[in-house]
């Protein structure tokens, strides 16, 4: 089986959890013998034919333009970074700056929506998509460009099924499905509701809905997300499957404790943005600080609320006990986990949330928001409503005051998450692929 996969993030191209989820998932899918042609928002028009599990690290690339591919093959690269730089895989997806031609985009989409034999329903989906994908903003332009390219991939590559991750790649997946006639699976890692902590950008919402409507199957990363897809997007329950995420750690990790501070260390790890509830973490810290001034709070990550949190933490007079790391690479993330005792995920809405699993793998005791998908898969963690800052603070205080208990729960959590593997998630995805394909073959004999 061969899958044409569209995603916006894949290591080293990472902004959040999506990249790490795709990485773990694809690696295990390859282990099951599924071939993946991966398309990323690269500067050059390339795809990544992944065949062996190790290919997720090597990222072999093929240029669609044969002449460019010949040049690429003959080019000598000192290391993978240099090679990826040639292809235009920037370290952070935001810097992807290849702008699309709006006119061309509309033409491509129009061509699809004006085919004969198209149903009224399908026509409406396309019209809605076109209307909401219009715009001059950087991100929308990038999505347009990405979508345009999908046409060539769909025509020139050979595949059985299309898999698209999150709204940025849904239009590409839809176009590929329309051109190739192959079934489309869309994967919901997060919806606009989760990211915005409310309705968010209505255009994104419409694009998400168009993708889910048009898809043959929808995979949600949790029950929590599936509920949201049903209630907020009115997607047919029968189309939705739930596949929980797992996690992967780099090979050379050491999970032994390596403290930074002698006192208790409490960690927030994630984008400093509304969805992740950093302000609830600060409120909790401020309450704990009054009882345990020896405790250190680390806010690891970057995000649009970083400055606000910095100023607020200073105003709360937490002294040198509330610290900011800025952006951390994988190695640094592991170092910060080794130095932590308690991990808090106060997300307002977390479709899944891989980071608590990573923290638990390091024996760090986790406190996770009830409003998260990850709370469905772990038992040895405290589950608290993100807004219940008092209970969160009491729990942290209790753990600080009972270090043996904290350690015990941390170890139990470690044992628990060690049983969570991407292979199990990949197997579920393989089954979804199979049933989608057989349904498709039945209706397209």
């Amino acid at each position: 089986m061969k899958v044409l996969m569209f995603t916006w993030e894949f290591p080293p191209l990472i902004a959040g959890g999506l990249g790490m989820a795709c990485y773990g998932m694809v690696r295990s899918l390859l282990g099951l013998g599924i071939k993946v042609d991966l398309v990323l928002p690269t500067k050059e028009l390339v795809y990544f034919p992944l065949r062996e599990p190790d290919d997720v690290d090597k990222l072999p690339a093929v240029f669609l333009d044969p002449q460019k591919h010949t040049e690429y093959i003959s080019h000598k690269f000192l290391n993978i970074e240099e090679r990826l730089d040639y292809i235009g895989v920037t370290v952070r997806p935001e810097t992807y700056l290849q702008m699309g031609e709006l006119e061309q985009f509309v033409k491509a989409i129009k061509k699809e929506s004006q085919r004969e034999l198209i149903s009224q329903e399908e026509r409406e989906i396309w019209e809605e998509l076109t209307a909401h994908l219009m715009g001059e903003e950087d991100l929308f332009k990038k999505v347009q460009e990405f979508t345009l390219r999908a046409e060539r991939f769909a025509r020139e590559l050979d595949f059985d099924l299309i898999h698209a991750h999150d709204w940025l790649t849904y239009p590409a997946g839809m176009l590929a499905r329309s051109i190739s006639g192959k079934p489309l699976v869309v994967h919901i890692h997060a919806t606009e509701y989760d990211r915005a902590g409310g309705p968010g950008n209505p255009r994104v919402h419409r694009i998400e809905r168009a993708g889910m409507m048009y898809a043959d199957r929808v995979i949600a990363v949790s029950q929590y997300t599936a509920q949201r897809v049903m209630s907020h997007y009115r997607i047919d329950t029968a189309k939705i499957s739930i596949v929980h995420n797992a996690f992967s750690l780099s090979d050379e990790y050491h999970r032994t404790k390596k403290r930074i501070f002698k006192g208790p260390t409490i960690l927030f790890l994630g984008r400093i943005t509304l969805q992740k509830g950093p302000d609830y973490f600060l409120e909790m810290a401020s309450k704990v600080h009054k009882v345990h001034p020896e405790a250190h709070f680390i806010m690891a990550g970057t995000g649009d609320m970083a400055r606000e949190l910095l100023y607020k933490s200073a105003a709360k007079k937490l002294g040198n006990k509330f610290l900011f790391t800025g952006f951390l690479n994988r190695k640094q993330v592991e170092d910060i986990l080794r130095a932590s005792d308690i991990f808090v995920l106060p997300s307002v809405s977390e479709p899944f949330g891989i980071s608590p699993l990573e923290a638990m793998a390091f024996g760090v005791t986790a406190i996770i928001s009830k409003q998260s998908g990850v709370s469905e898969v772990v038992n040895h963690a405290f589950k608290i409503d993100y807004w219940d800052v008092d209970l969160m603070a009491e729990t942290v205080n209790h753990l600080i005051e009972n270090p043996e208990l904290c350690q015990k729960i941390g170890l139990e959590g470690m044992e628990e998450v060690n049983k969570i593997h991407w292979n199990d998630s990949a197997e579920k995805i393989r089954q979804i692929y199979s049933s989608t394909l057989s349904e498709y073959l039945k209706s397209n004999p």
Partner: protein
Amino acid sequence: MLYVIFYFQVHQPYRLRHLNVLDIGKGLDYFDEHLNSQIMRKVTEKCYLPTNKILLDLIKKYEGRFKVAFSLTGTAIEQMKAYSPEALDSFKELVDTGNVELLGETYYHSLSFLFDTNDFLDQVAMHRDLMKSEFGYYPETFRNTELIYQDSLSDLIYEIEGFHTILTEGVDRILQWRSPLYAYKNYAKTINLLLKYYQLADDIAFRFSDRDWPEYPLTVDKFVNWIDHLTLSEKENRNLFLNLFMDYETFGEHQWAETGIFDFMQHFPEEILKRPHLGFANPKEAYKLANYQQEALSFPEPVSWADVERDLSAWLSNDMQRNAIETLYNLINLIRQKGDEKLMEVAHKLSTSDHFYYMCTKYFQDGDVHKYFSPYDSPDQAYIYYMNALADLEERLQ
């Protein structure tokens, strides 16, 4: 007579390196030695050596009729010793002429007066010792960091043997109708006060090369004429003091050599001394030259020479600055209780006011000045590195 009193501030902070949370506990030096040495070398070449040479020649040429005062911080002298000893030697040569006054201040150019009286007195004593050991000099005039002054400072300085005069800013809201040209007394009439004449001092320090300034270019003739006019207001033959206080780095660093700042300084004394009713004096001489009853001035709230507000807002107007400085003085207190001299030295280097200046977020008119002087990308970064240093320091204390 009108006496021009020049006082130049010579200061360099220990700038912090970009400390990350993950650096904590690794025993790293907090200070960016590479950057600090680079800046010291640069300022030595562009300012200290050429300006000292000019001043030395002028002092020799006018045989005691031209004089200047310096305040050199402990952190500047330490870094001169480490990175450009020839700069320190040239200051010593100047002091040896006998026409150069050295002022007293806090060794670390700190805000300790506002937060920790014990630490303030310690730092003043350290600085006195330094002046004695390096220059064999006993300061009689005090200037607090950034000319920060309020009534209670004069009480503290009065208690320290040897000081009889304090320099501060001629702030309009204190002076009101009075002129900064007179010598004043503090509120208790125990100490003499000399007030910076900020309009003219800042003409040299800030506006000298500003092409948008209507008076550009500032020539010696023009400037001395302005000074001459100041004497017209005095009808009773009382001696006046024109206090031109500024950062020494004005010469060659803030105002580059190309602006003509060195030529200006070279020819300024000649024009002044041509006129019999104009001359130069050092701050310590002023109270003897004041041939009148000095009026007492009260400063109930702190003033400074920084920014348009001339208050403490350059260092203490946002939550980051306040949290950082309060945390520092809590730590200094703990370190003092423990008596750990090594950690105290590090904490003291962190007490330099510049660290809080870099965290300033008043980004209108003065923001540019703050940005010019900051080694970091933003006030946020300055705060993050600083708090990481304080977190590490506290770990080392435990």
